[in-house]
């Protein structure tokens, strides 16, 4: 091997370390601070003393509700728009480009801008106030481009021969979409939904001024509710002595996200999943 190649090998290994070490440190510092707090009770108790004591049950409930609102809006809208793109807009046309550009733009919009919009539009203009509904809707808009793109990919992956077969049977368009297209693309669409859940769970800035941060179990969609990510922020920034529980909540959130990621892998590579 020539010397530049050997040098490159060393440099590459060092770079890999430069990435892995901070990551390892990150996990380690979370474990160091938070591992002692995590227990079954931590998951089942409501927070007390502004989160300094107790657990995160109320936050899991709020997070679940916000996520439910987000998905109820983003999944059908996303699937609809993906169907529109794959069924009614021929690729390469001007309309396809415009829509694609719009989606890219929506995906690039900073999340704090979704927060501003949600605050002004849902919380104030529509009068929903600081509520799970405001937060979930703002979040839905944020994950929409991701949802659309992954669903579109799944729909486009359905082989053309299926379409030809459908045409040969002179099946109606609605029948084709419902009986063949969507069932065929279902795993890919599911992956899109899981990816959207991951993105929504990781988001904080959108929720600060929409869902708010009331620390209790919500009774209705019009109650404010604090998501896990907002809880981490608040404990870390605003609660003296909140670090251990901030780290513990972070560990729980990361664990959920890792599980979602593994799920996606299983969907994408079912063959691998079989022997794992």
């Amino acid at each position: 091997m020539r010397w530049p190649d050997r040098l490159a090998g060393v440099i590459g290994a060092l770079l890999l370390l430069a990435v892995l070490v901070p990551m390892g440190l990150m996990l380690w510092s979370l474990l160091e601070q938070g591992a002692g707090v995590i227990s079954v009770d931590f998951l089942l108790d409501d927070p007390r003393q502004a989160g300094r004591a107790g657990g995160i049950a109320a936050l899991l409930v709020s997070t679940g509700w916000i996520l439910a609102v987000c998905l109820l809006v983003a999944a059908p809208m996303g699937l609809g728009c993906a169907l529109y793109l794959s069924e009614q807009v021929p690729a390469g046309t001007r309309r396809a480009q415009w829509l694609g550009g719009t989606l890219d733009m929506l995906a690039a919009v900073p999340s704090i801008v979704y927060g501003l919009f949600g605050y002004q539009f849902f919380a104030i203009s529509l009068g929903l106030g600081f509520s799970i509904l405001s937060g979930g809707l703002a979040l839905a808009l944020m994950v929409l481009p991701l949802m659309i793109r992954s669903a579109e990919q799944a729909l486009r992956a359905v082989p053309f021969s299926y379409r030809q077969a459908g045409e040969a049977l002179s099946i109606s368009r609605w029948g084709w979409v419902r009986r063949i297209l969507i069932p065929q693309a279902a795993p890919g669409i599911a992956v899109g939904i899981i990816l959207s859940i991951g993105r929504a769970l990781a988001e904080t800035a959108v929720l600060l001024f929409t869902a708010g941060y009331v620390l209790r179990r919500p009774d209705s969609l019009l109650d404010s509710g604090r998501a896990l990510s907002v809880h981490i922020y608040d404990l870390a920034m605003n609660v003296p002595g909140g670090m251990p529980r901030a780290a513990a909540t972070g560990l729980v959130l990361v664990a959920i996200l890792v599980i979602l990621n593994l799920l996606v892998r299983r969907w994408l590579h079912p063959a691998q999943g079989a022997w794992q």
Partner: protein
Amino acid sequence: MITISSRFHADSLLTWLLRLTGAAAVLVLGGIIAVLLIQSAPFMLEHGSALWRNDWQPGQARYGMAAMIAGSIVVSVLALVIAGPVAVLLAAWLRYFAPSVRRPVLTLVELMAGIPSVVYGLWGMLVLVPWINRLAPPGASWLAASLVLALMILPLALLVTDTALGQLPARYLQAGQALSLSRVGMLRRVLLPQAGPAIVSGLVLQFGRALGETMAVLMVAGNVVRWPTSLFDPVRTLTANIAVEMAYATGDHRVALFASGLLLLLVTAVLLALSWRLRGERHEMA
């Protein structure tokens, strides 16, 4: 494409529904722009030039955002300067020098990409800020913000670069081997230049992500409105400013924050257009 059938009603309903959802996507973007514009337009028309000054004193009705614009830029630029080369070199190394570890490393990197930005911020508060504080107080600083952002954008920057390299035709490699170039030489003269535009296009998007990030920066930057002069000085970015002050801003102050949101949106659009251009107008997301 599909022949007409007796279920005409369901079909035309479906067509319309789909068109509606397609329009909804456009409407969302239009709505965001409209809301930001409506909120900030009257103020900008009247005192637009005041926004570019360097004095942010909302208490005294002075809304110059120059220091925070600068803060946003320097923090993101440094993050990109740190993360960009690492991502490109590491991606190239994984693909051409250590293919056996590429899969597991990329799997790990994908996991990293999904970690919430608050968790990166939390790590910054727990580890990085105290560490910089020992070096040069106060700790919460431009450097801290850039390092946290660098770590945050690195995973996607790496994945994007890997994809860009993967799209190169195999004949480049073969041609290089035929010329008996060293692997480093091949990388430097053939592969990286060929994949360059796609890589840069991806990095531009990551720069946009850094500019738009709120939480991770908010938690470690110190948030003092000040022209950034030293790596160890605290800074405030536009995004952090919105998060810090939106909750209680009223009147012109509130309007100024909406104006900064609009500015962020504009910058994002410009970066996106730049990324498209580099990629040759192909509208594809990383």
